[in-house]
């Protein structure tokens, strides 16, 4: 007779922290992107609270100064403190990005959903409109719109509006196709059979599964909004008084900043823009992984 203790079932479970760290190691893109974005947000908030925001506008401080202790990012031809200009510019870019992004995503979710869920000719119309508007070069149209507006009417809010005008088709089609796949899948049929009303199905079954796509669409829309607003601004079509990133670069180009050796002037906004779009792109890539589980690997 052998004397032995009861053999324990072999359960080797890593701790919670290890799991989170492992995931972060695998999905570096998401982590870095979010980190950079966070830094930018902190920068903006700190600046808004500590700096004198009036200095972001012309004729506030000595002009054409290179970066120094007093003016960390230098000043421009018109007498703006570029550091403060960055802070305000980032804030306004964020407003445009989030506003246009949220609006675009919202329209996309509502229209895409209605189109897929209720089907029929409503679906045909919505889908048709989206498909027909897609080949139209949105940026060009936006240029035309912005170019036609009276200079005084251009504000960051009109810019956001102009951007959304031709950006909503993307999320609509994406959400629509997702809802369509879901409609076919079993769990909606099961919910219907068990007597759940339409509204119930929508909120408890479909929406939770749509969240990753909604989130991804939002990030995409914000990216596009920042891109498009920068594009318009750099052509001189933005609200010229505001220190938007694109505006700053446009002004710098108009004054031949590089050739006059005021290199710091366009550099700051260029860097800021690259950081914003880059971090958004990384986050997009990272969310890609969340939505597509096959990308996940352990070890």
């Amino acid at each position: 007779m052998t004397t032995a203790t009861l053999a324990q079932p072999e359960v080797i479970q890593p701790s919670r922290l290890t799991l989170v760290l492992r995931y972060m190691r695998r999905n570096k893109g998401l982590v870095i992107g979010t980190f950079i974005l966070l830094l930018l947000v902190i920068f903006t908030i700190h600046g808004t609270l500590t700096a004198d925001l009036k200095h972001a506008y012309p004729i506030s401080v000595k002009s054409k100064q290179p970066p120094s202790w007093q003016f960390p990012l230098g000043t421009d031809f018109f007498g703006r403190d570029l550091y403060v200009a960055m802070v305000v510019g980032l804030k306004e870019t964020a407003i445009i990005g989030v506003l246009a992004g949220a609006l675009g995503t919202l329209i996309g979710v509502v229209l895409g959903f209605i189109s897929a869920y209720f089907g029929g000719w409503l679906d045909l119309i919505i889908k048709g409109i989206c498909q027909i508007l897609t080949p139209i070069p949105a940026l060009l149209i936006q240029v035309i719109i912005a170019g036609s507006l009276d200079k005084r009417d251009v504000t960051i809010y009109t810019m956001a509006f102009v951007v959304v005008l031709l950006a909503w088709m993307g999320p609509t089609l994406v959400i629509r196709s997702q809802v369509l796949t879901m409609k076919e899948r079993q769990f909606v049929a099961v919910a219907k059979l068990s007597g759940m009303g339409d509204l119930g199905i929508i909120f408890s079954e479909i929406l939770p599964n749509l969240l990753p796509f909604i989130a991804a669409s939002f990030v995409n829309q914000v990216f596009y909004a920042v891109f498009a607003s920068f594009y318009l601004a750099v052509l001189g079509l933005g609200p010229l008084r505001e220190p938007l990133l694109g505006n700053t670069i446009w002004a710098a180009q108009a004054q031949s900043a590089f050739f006059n050796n005021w290199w710091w002037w366009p550099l700051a906004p260029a860097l800021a823009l690259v950081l914003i779009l880059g971090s958004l792109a990384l986050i997009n890539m990272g969310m890609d992984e969340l939505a597509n589980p096959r990308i996940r690997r352990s070890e």
Partner: protein
Amino acid sequence: MVKLIIRRLLFLIMVIWAASTIVFFIPRISVKNPVRERFATLARTGGFSPADMEKIIAAYNVKFGLDKPLLQQYGDYMASIARFDLGVSYNLYPKTVMALIMDSLPWTIVLLLVTTILSFVIGNLLGAIAAWPRAPQWARTIATPFILLQGVPPVLMGVLLLFFIGFKLKLAPLGGAYSTGVVPDWSSPAFIWDVVWHQILPGLALLLGSVGGWTLGMRGMGITIQGEDYVNFAEHKGLSAYTIFKDYYLRNALLPQVTGLALALGSVVSSAIVIESQFGLPGLGRILDAAIRSNDFLVIYGVVLFVTIAVAALMVGMEFIYPLLDPRIRNE
């Protein structure tokens, strides 16, 4: 088959109609009258009396039909589109819009085509490699800087390239289609090389930011394809990694990407046009730019319409190419 062609043609017509309508109404929001703008410029140089100017402007308005009610103008315009008559440029009268477009089109086409195709090939290859677990680590990371570069809009890239490579390093020309003082001679290889040389920076400005998009898409596609049973079976057959990569993985993952090609062309167009102004290339960008500043309606319409039709036609065309590549669809 015939039904398909008809449906696609209908789509094309709808797109043209939508684009024309949008483009027609937008500039009308503005108060700027193109004829007036033109004369304002003239007035600054010469000495015209305001009263005389008004008479001339009124006369031109009648001539161009700008005094008719909006809806009638719309109707007239749509009718002329159907006749392929894009009208004349107010600003550069009497040059017709079509002529303006045709002059600058070749430059734009070359720039676009080359950059889009290169971007597609490089981007997709990088994406495919990035998703392939057996690719060496260094190869998989080449994709990353391109993905990051997506954050740099072509416009900005143009500025940076111009400054750093053109101005500071003097490695490439600062603009223009060919060197100043050179007489265009398309039969001379030296001239052709000069032209190509001048296309490099603008091409790069467009290329570098767009590769990332393809890479990301292909990477996602690649990962899905890797999980497919036929890739698995290919491994069971003992095929080399290279063969599996080429025939089982790439061939299948690339197909859906091709559908995005036409769309990509469409979106690059906008950026390309700005790049052209930036680098002083004599493409569509230059005439569109001038037209927007002076609110030269018909030129604006013409260019945007032309671009829209081209993109839409390409999209439709792709649908006919797709079956050639994917045997599963051929029988429809």
